């Protein structure tokens, strides 16, 4: 696998297309010889990022998912044109309070090696996630 190959997927901001983004990350991670557990983590993170994007974007807008393939890691960026948020103002999640939202970002940060949010109100959101290939 040459460094820096990029695959880009554009999906409508609709729930039924999240599985397509998961399928694509599964395919590219398989090509990079990630193991099953790492592929499951990637599917989870991409699914959560797309879910957030769809929840916070207009129904007819477009979500862009870019997969950048490197020999030892995969970078995934999920970009929406939604209402955005202030990443520094994220409320903490208290499980004992039985939260019904806010779990997605917790999951992404737990399963990926690097996560970066770029967002501002009314300017959309870009989530950049890095997963390194596990050593065998």
């Amino acid at each position, binding site marked *: 696998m040459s460094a820096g190959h990029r695959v880009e997927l554009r999906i409508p901001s609709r729930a039924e297309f999240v599985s397509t983004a998961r399928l694509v990350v599964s395919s590219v991670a398989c090509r990079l010889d990630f193991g099953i557990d790492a592929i499951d983590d990637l599917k989870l993170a991409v699914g959560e990022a797309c879910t957030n994007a769809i929840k916070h974007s207009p129904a007819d807008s477009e979500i862009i998912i870019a997969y950048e393939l490197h020999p030892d890691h995969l970078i995934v960026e999920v970009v929406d044109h939604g209402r955005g948020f202030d990443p520094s103002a994220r409320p903490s999640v208290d499980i004992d309070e039985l939260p*019904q939202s806010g*779990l*997605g970002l917790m*999951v992404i940060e*737990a399963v990926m090696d690097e996560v970066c949010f770029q967002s501002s109100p009314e300017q959309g959101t870009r989530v950049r996630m890095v997963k390194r290939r596990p050593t065998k």
Partner: protein
Amino acid sequence: METMPIDIKIRKLGANLAVVELIGDCDLYTTPKAKQAIVELIEQGYVFLAVVLEKTAYMDSTALGMLVGSLKRVREHKGDLALVAPQPRVQRLLDITRLTTVFDVSATEESAIESLRQRGAKVP
């Protein structure tokens, strides 16, 4: 559009106890269907629920939020909700979010029903 549909199987075992089996993927697209089924059960008085995850191939935070919401609803009616036999990838999700401290997670349907019986479920 290729989306693995969710199949929901419901068994009403007693006056206030039901088993809900979620088969397939439980995500942003399919979770509303599961939520509707569970809400209807609670409205019918089935406030002790065993949710079987043995054949839940994929689950995300939307589904977790739905389960947490369902737990809140049944507790408002003095009921409870137990999770049964989650697959390793779903168990990992529960571990990451620390929801294992919130839900009663049982290895088998029988043990979940016994646990719910001890908390007020009417088992024939």
